[in-house]
Structures are given as structure tokens and as C-alpha cells.
């Protein structure tokens, strides 16, 4: 792959996909199960995540939200004791296929972590980190790189605050700025899907509000899956909502339906706050 704009999916698949993009789901899982050693953390998960929408994953602590999210970019596999069965199809491609390159997968499926984790280098280098791994040395000239940094930081409303200290260490920013930077560094890669694992849990109320607004704006361009503990947040930001319990999907519907007319008794109990 030589340029930034090309997504991870091979050209052939991509052209066929472009025609059907509206109809297909961004992420489909079929009978996905996952074990940590002999503990089963996901049980036969089958879901369809629709593109250009925000889907929230809710459920009590330890139900497997993070685990499910980390299946989508296969970052779970860095722990040696993980076994996965079933299928995950992202943008029409089974990500467990032999010919899938992890690096390319992660280019089109970005991730934002619970704890902001900018790299201990400058703000500028953080934004370009992904591009540097995916393109050959000097694919872009100085002006193009500056441009990419500026546009990514503008997209996350961080440009004004940091434009005078792009060379200073990213780890010195406030948590809110760090989390915005972590979103910004995905953008130059032009991902199709962005996974967010409780992105606001380290932030204060105002920070949370601003980041939520930001996530809302990203919805037009990206498919977003967001894990949250906070039901109010799920209601505020998401279009669709998935409720999980003990590794299983209990209910998946539009957010308003899920909160106003839950079909399952367990969902109802959870949204009434009976599971913690």
C-alpha cells in the first residue's frame, strides 16, 4: 500500500464493497467465542454493527465488553493464552483469514483506550506515528506532514491549544488533551472503524462532555463502537446499543428502544440499576 487513503482491504474486495456499502454492516460477528485459558469470556456472540453510526456496548463489569472490542482489531492476541472461535467480518473481510495483515487491519480499525496512552514522544510525532509505520520513509514532504498534523488536531479541537508546542512531550498534556490526541493520531490513517473503550472514564465532567461532543461529530465519517459503563453516556452518544451479560449478547437495538422498551428482562433490570 503506497498512499494513506487506501484502506486495508485489498482492492478487489473494496470495489465490490463500495457498491454495497450502504447495505453491508461494518462489523459482523458469527458465533464468536473467546477463552482466556479455560475461562470463557465471550459466548457465541453474533452481532451486526451498522456503518457510520455509534454503537455502544454496555453491561456490568467483567461481562466482556473490553474483550469483545479487542477482538475487532485482534489486539487480544498479544496475551498468549487466548483462543478464539467463530467469525468476525469487518468491512466485508473475515479478519481471521490467513491473508489478513494485522498491521493493515489495525490501520482501518483504530482504537482508543480507557486510559489515555499517548506515546512518550512529541505531540507532532504522536499524530504521525501511525502514518510512519504504514508508509515508506519520506512519502510525504514536510508541508504535507504539517498539514496532516494540523488537520488531525483541528478535527479533535486540539489545534488551538497545542499549536505552539507541537514539539513538546505528549505525556505532559492534561488527560483530556491526551485522550483527544489519542483520537487525533488515528485520523491520518483514515480508519473506517474506531473502537473506544470507556474513552471518558479518566476525565472529569466537562472533559467528558467535550469528548462526547467530539465523538458525536466523528460519527459522520467513521463507524464507532464505544464501550461504556455509564448508561447516561450510552443514551447521549449512541445510535444503537448492545447489552452484554456474562459474555453473552442479551439485547441489541436502537438506543432509544433499548432504554425505553427493553425486550429482555435482564436488560430492564440492568438499566434500572440492579446489576451495578
Amino acid at each position: 500500500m503506497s498512499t494513506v487513503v487506501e484502506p486495508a482491504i485489498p482492492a478487489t474486495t473494496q470495489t465490490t464493497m463500495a457498491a454495497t456499502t450502504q447495505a453491508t454492516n461494518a462489523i459482523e460477528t458469527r458465533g464468536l467465542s473467546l477463552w482466556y485459558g479455560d475461562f470463557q469470556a465471550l459466548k457465541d456472540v453474533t452481532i451486526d454493527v451498522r456503518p457510520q453510526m455509534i454503537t455502544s456496548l454496555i453491561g456490568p463489569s467483567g461481562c466482556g465488553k473490553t474483550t469483545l472490542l479487542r477482538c475487532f482489531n485482534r489486539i487480544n492476541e498479544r496475551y498468549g493464552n487466548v483462543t478464539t472461535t467463530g467469525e468476525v467480518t469487518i468491512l466485508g473481510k473475515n479478519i481471521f483469514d490467513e491473508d489478513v495483515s494485522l498491521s493493515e487491519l489495525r490501520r482501518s480499525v483504530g482504537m482508543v483506550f480507557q486510559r489515555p496512552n499517548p506515546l512518550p514522544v512529541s505531540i507532532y510525532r504522536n499524530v504521525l506515528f501511525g502514518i510512519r509505520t504504514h508508509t515508506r520513509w519520506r512519502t510525504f514532504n514536510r508541508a504535507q506532514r504539517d498539514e496532516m498534523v494540523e488537520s488531525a488536531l483541528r478535527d479533535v479541537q486540539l489545534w488551538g491549544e497545542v499549536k505552539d508546542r507541537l514539539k513538546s512531550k505528549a505525556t505532559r498534556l492534561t488527560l483530556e488533551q491526551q485522550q483527544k490526541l489519542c483520537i487525533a493520531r488515528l485520523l491520518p490513517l483514515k480508519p473506517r472503524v474506531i473502537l473506544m473503550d470507556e474513552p471518558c472514564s479518566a476525565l472529569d465532567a466537562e472533559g467528558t462532555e467535550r469528548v462526547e461532543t467530539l465523538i458525536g461529530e466523528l460519527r459522520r465519517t467513521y463507524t464507532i463502537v464505544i464501550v461504556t459503563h455509564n448508561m447516561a453516556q450510552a443514551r447521549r452518544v449512541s445510535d444503537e446499543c448492545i447489552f452484554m451479560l456474562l459474555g453473552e449478547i442479551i439485547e441489541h437495538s436502537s438506543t432509544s428502544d433499548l432504554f425505553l422498551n427493553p425486550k429482555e428482562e435482564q436488560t430492564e433490570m440492568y438499566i434500572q440499576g440492579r446489576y451495578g
Partner: protein
Amino acid sequence: MGIPTTSVAARVRHVWRLSERLREKAIEWAIRICGWSAIFFVLAIFFFVFREAAPMLLGGLDFKEFFTSPNWRPTSQVRPEYGILALLVGSLSLAGVAMAVAVPFGLGAAVFISEFCGGKTKETLKIVIELLAAVPSIVWGFVGLFVLAPLIVEWTGAQVGVNLLNAGIVVALMSVPIIVSIGEDALKAVPDSYREAALSLGASRWEIVYRVLFPAAKNGLLAAVLLGVGRAIGETMAVLMCTGHSINIPHSLLDPIRALTATIATELGDTVEGDEHWQALFTIGVVLFTITFVINLTADLVVKGIRSEKSA
């Protein structure tokens, strides 16, 4: 009110509590004395070395000649000369060669242990490295003399196998364990969230090593290297056995050299306490002490640098 049965128990408890306070004080003092004594010993060592060197250092030593003359002829009947240039260059070039070998190997091994292997392999490797650190200096000397020297003669056609290269390799092997264990600590201290961040952006494991771990752990890695250098400068026995011990400013890897430490070790026994030669050797001691002190201090400050950065 003193009901007999309880008052006995109470008194015992009272005495016990008193003695507990005393014991605590005693332990506190014991620990304090241990701490102070460490500082005291270092100062005392420096004091004694300095005291022996003092008459020469303070009275009429020609510093220019001392540091710039390559002639070390302390036993000359006609005119003894005390120039340590050749010895200093010997020690420094030895450290240089040793580090040229030990740094890539040591840091490579540290990266491998901390990032590329897990479970059994990791434990085994760590034990092997620790064993390597426990091999006595004299045994390394034998390895240099009887294993490495013939090999060097065979491969390079040098006349003698004990030379800068031989000693450099031996000292490298001795410094590797320090570099590996401190380097591994430094890498281990890099938060896992950095690795996940880079991985989730599509970086490969190698890219993570040189684009994330090296910058993040650079202070710790530098400290590891500096401590390795300190080891190389300070090593005596193996160096004495493997360098060829001849006074010589080396022009190639195959030249024999002589190190500062080995000079002290071999000559001190032949001097008369307090004479000029004796003082000159102690002056070399002061020079060595200063070099290693500066290196260790730098390493310390560098490590402190990591800490304050982390808390920032």
C-alpha cells in the same frame, strides 16, 4: 484497681510493651548505623587511597608529564618516569572495545528477554545471565588465556593471542550481565499501555522496540551502558591475564596493552611502602577512583532523570 490476677498479666504486658519500644529503637539504630557505615567506608577508602597518594599529588607531581607522557618507568635506576598516558589509553581503549561488543549484545539480549520471549525461555535466560555474572574474574582470565588466545592467533595470525581484542572480548562478556539486567529492568518499566498504543496503530514488534521502547527507556538503557563501562574500567584480574600487560599505546586491536588497574595489582607488591613508586601507584588509584566515581554518578543522575520525568 489491682485485682491480683489481671495485675500480673497487665504488668507483663506493660513490661513487654516497654521492651518493644526499646527493641524498635535498637533496630532503628542498627539500620541507621548500617546506612552510615556504607557512606563511611566509601569515604574511608577514598581517604586512605588519597592519603598515600597525597605526598606526590600535592608535592611536586608534574601533572602534565603524568598525564601526557607514555613512559611508565617507575623502577628505572637512572631516572624513574611516571607517565600514565599509555596505561590510561590502554584502559580506555579496552573499555571502548569491550563496549563495542557488549552494548549491542547486552541491549539485544535485554530486548529479547523483555519483549520477545516469555515463560520458561525468559526464566532460563535470566538464570543463565545471572550465572554469567557470578563467574569469578580469574576464571574469565583463564578463558581469555586458554580459549580465546589460541583462537585469536589462529584466526588473525597475530603473534600473541593476549592483546586488546582478547581482553576486550573477555571484559565484554563480564559487562554483558550488568547491561542485560539493568537494561531489562529499564524496558520492563516501560508501561504496557505504550506497547498497546503502538500495536493498535499497526506497528510491528520491532518497530515498537526502536520507536517506542528505546525512546521511552533511553535513560535506563544509558545507565546500563555506563555501569558496563564502569565494570570495564575497574576490572583487574582478567584484564591482567588477557591484555598482554605491556606498556604500549595500541594502534590495532591485536596490540597488547596495559591497563591502570593491572599496573597497580602487579607493581604494588614490589614497592617499598611510602616511596615514590608506591605514591605513584596510589595516584593511579585516585585517577581510577575518579573515573569510576564520575561514571557511576552520571549513571545515577541519568536514572534519577527517568524517575523525575515519570513523576512529571
